[in-house]
């Protein structure tokens, strides 16, 4: 009860509701910049080693299941679409539509994570996890192939962690949307939650070709 009135009302450090919304939005954009730099370190490592060992990366990438990767990409793009619809629903003030689209977004996100878990499990069975039992067919460079899979697990793992955090955010939004907290005059959390979700989506848009498709010409 108390927190509800507090969030809807203007926080005391701000002069106007417009200033509050601008500050929150800018804050999320700055945060996303830090996220780009955070993932940037991994992308740099990927670039360096792919340039040094193009053939091994080619072979290792070919062993990934492109169909599953493509399906997951489609799922994630759809979740971004339903997220946009949720923001739109907040703008026009339809409580029911916000709730439905947030649930849809969460479900699609869940499907993505489920598929990801299946893929990781497959890697364990195929001995494609870096470590003593690692073995990749069609190459003699087992050490460098492990490097590819180390990067694969680090990058998809960090991405999946961001997805899980995103699901938590969506759950938070869902509770508040269900309680009727968001109105056309105040829906900033849905808006910036959407920004975050799209960001995580975009990261995957880069990961998919870099990890799955470099073997294809």
């Amino acid at each position, binding site marked *: 009860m108390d927190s509800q009135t507090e969030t809807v009302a203007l926080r*005391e*450090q*701000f*002069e106007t509701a417009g*200033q509050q919304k*601008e*500050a929150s939005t*800018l*804050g999320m954009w*700055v*945060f996303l*910049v*830090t*996220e780009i*730099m*955070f*993932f*940037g*370190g*991994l992308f*740099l*490592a990927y670039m*360096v*080693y792919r340039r*040094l*060992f193009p053939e*091994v990366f080619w072979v290792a990438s070919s062993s990934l299941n492109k169909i599953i990767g493509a399906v997951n990409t489609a799922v994630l793009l759809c979740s971004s679409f339903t997220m946009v619809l949720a923001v739109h629903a907040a703008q026009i003030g339809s409580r029911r539509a916000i709730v439905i689209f947030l649930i849809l977004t969460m479900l699609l996100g869940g499907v993505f994570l489920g598929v990801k878990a299946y893929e990781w499990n497959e890697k364990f069975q195929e001995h494609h996890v*870096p*470590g003593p039992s690692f073995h990749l067919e069609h190459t003699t*460079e087992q*050490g*460098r192939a*492990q*490097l590819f899979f*180390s*990067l694969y697990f*680090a990058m998809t793992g*960090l991405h999946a962690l961001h997805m899980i955090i995103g699901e938590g955010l969506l759950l938070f939004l869902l509770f508040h949307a269900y309680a009727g907290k968001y109105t056309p005059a105040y829906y900033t959390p849905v808006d910036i939650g959407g920004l975050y979700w799209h960001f995580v989506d975009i990261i995957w848009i880069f990961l998919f070709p870099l990890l799955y498709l470099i073997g294809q010409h």
Partner: protein
Amino acid sequence: MITAAVHEQATYLNESYGIKSWLLTKDHKRIALLYLATITFFFFLGGIFATLIRIELLTPSGDLVSSETYNKLFTLHGVIMVFFFLIPSIPATLGNFFLPLMIGAKDLAFPRINLLSWYLLVIGGCFAMYAMLAGGVDTGWTFYVPYSTSYSNGYVIATGLGIFIAGFSSILTGLNFIVTVHRMRAPGMTWFRLPLFVWSNYATALIQVLGTPVLAITMVLLICERSLHLGIFDPARGGDPVLYQHLFWFYSHPAVYIMVLPGMGVISELVSTFSRKRVFGYKMIAFSSVAIAVLGFLVWGHHLFVAGQSVYAGLVFSFLSYFVAIPSAIKVFNWTATLYKGSISYATPMLYAFGFIGLFTMGGLTGLFVASLGIDVHVTDTYFVIAHFHYIMVGGTLMAYLGGLHYWWPKMTGRMYPEGFAKLSALTVFLGFNLTFFPQFILGYLGMPRRYHSYPDEFQVLHVMSTAGASVLAVGYVMPLVYFIWSLRYGAIAGPNPWGATGLEWKTTSPPPAHNFDETPIVTTEAYDYAALEVAKVG
């Protein structure tokens, strides 16, 4: 009771009482004080390690501690001082307290995130202290692979986690400052009316936001490499240890500017106030802060001159490193030009400011030595480098921090510190500092390597001088701790504007009320408008 309450002025300190009102506060001024207490603790903790290092180096043979212990001492000294004192120092205390006041805001844009950032620093510090108590870490504060990932027996993972967590504290402070400066300025407070302290903290925030996440992912990779053997830095799998150095210094060189830029902002305020003049070349100083922030990201390779980096990369990094001297020199020249024909008073903060300008200049100029490819090969990993960066970190940042703390202490607490003791401490710090670190330039040039706990006999005289200087320095640092605490109860009442300074922070009461200003100020003049102040006084 009732009459006492009526007479007592409402401040952020007496607004509410009890430990909970502090630990759950969203007031940027209280959070600044939480930070102040925390980093003071870490400063003296790091100081204990420094003391042990200096005592060990009193004699040529390694007789006080074993070489393993010595490795842990300089590592913990570096880790604590860099990540838990210098990085948060000025932004998280003075910046946190005064940035909103200076732009006429009621608070930072995200007060809860501000409190969270303090908790993150404390949690990160707990991890680092756990590592320290459990047995220490001996890799040096740079955690170079493969030693840190494969060979070290120290608590690398706990320390790395601590730095990772403290890094997010720094990121959130930067994020908060950027949004606050963009969105929370009072009516009439245009960008070119901002005090230069705000400009420099804004530039610092840019580095915190762009650089620190790279350190975070580097620490994650380091921890994964050590625990899961990813192979990313392991040559046996085609990994490259030098990649670690690139990633580490991509943050850790700009981090030098996270440490010194806010100090430069403090000096701009001090020089103007105590010369009673507008800062000469205001826009140039403002832009030079941003220039340092940008250029700072393009020079990390000068830490890899001897790490097997290509000669061409070395040439470019050397050239770009020289380039940083330009905005730094712009600042130094403009401060000196501000002094010209100024009505200078030698209050304690100004003594620290003078100390900063001289010592920073020396630190900066010796930076040119180590930025040149040829000389760096001779002095790399020697005491020359140690002396160089201590002139920037201690002679620069710490002098500015202490100067700023004296300058704004009356505003923060409502009480004056004792001027006589304070001047004595400023002088002690300056003399002790030079006695400690100037001999190290000579030591390094003669070939004394860093991170050794024993050395040839002919170096002893210079080492004894350095240790003697460190004892003087210690006295200089303990004095402010004592008289600042003393002043909380016995200091003279300061009044709203003891220095007769311009700036919005002096237009409210000391200490300020919880929401900073009784009504939102409207700004109609540029910063440092001392000319108008003098006219008004005569009129």
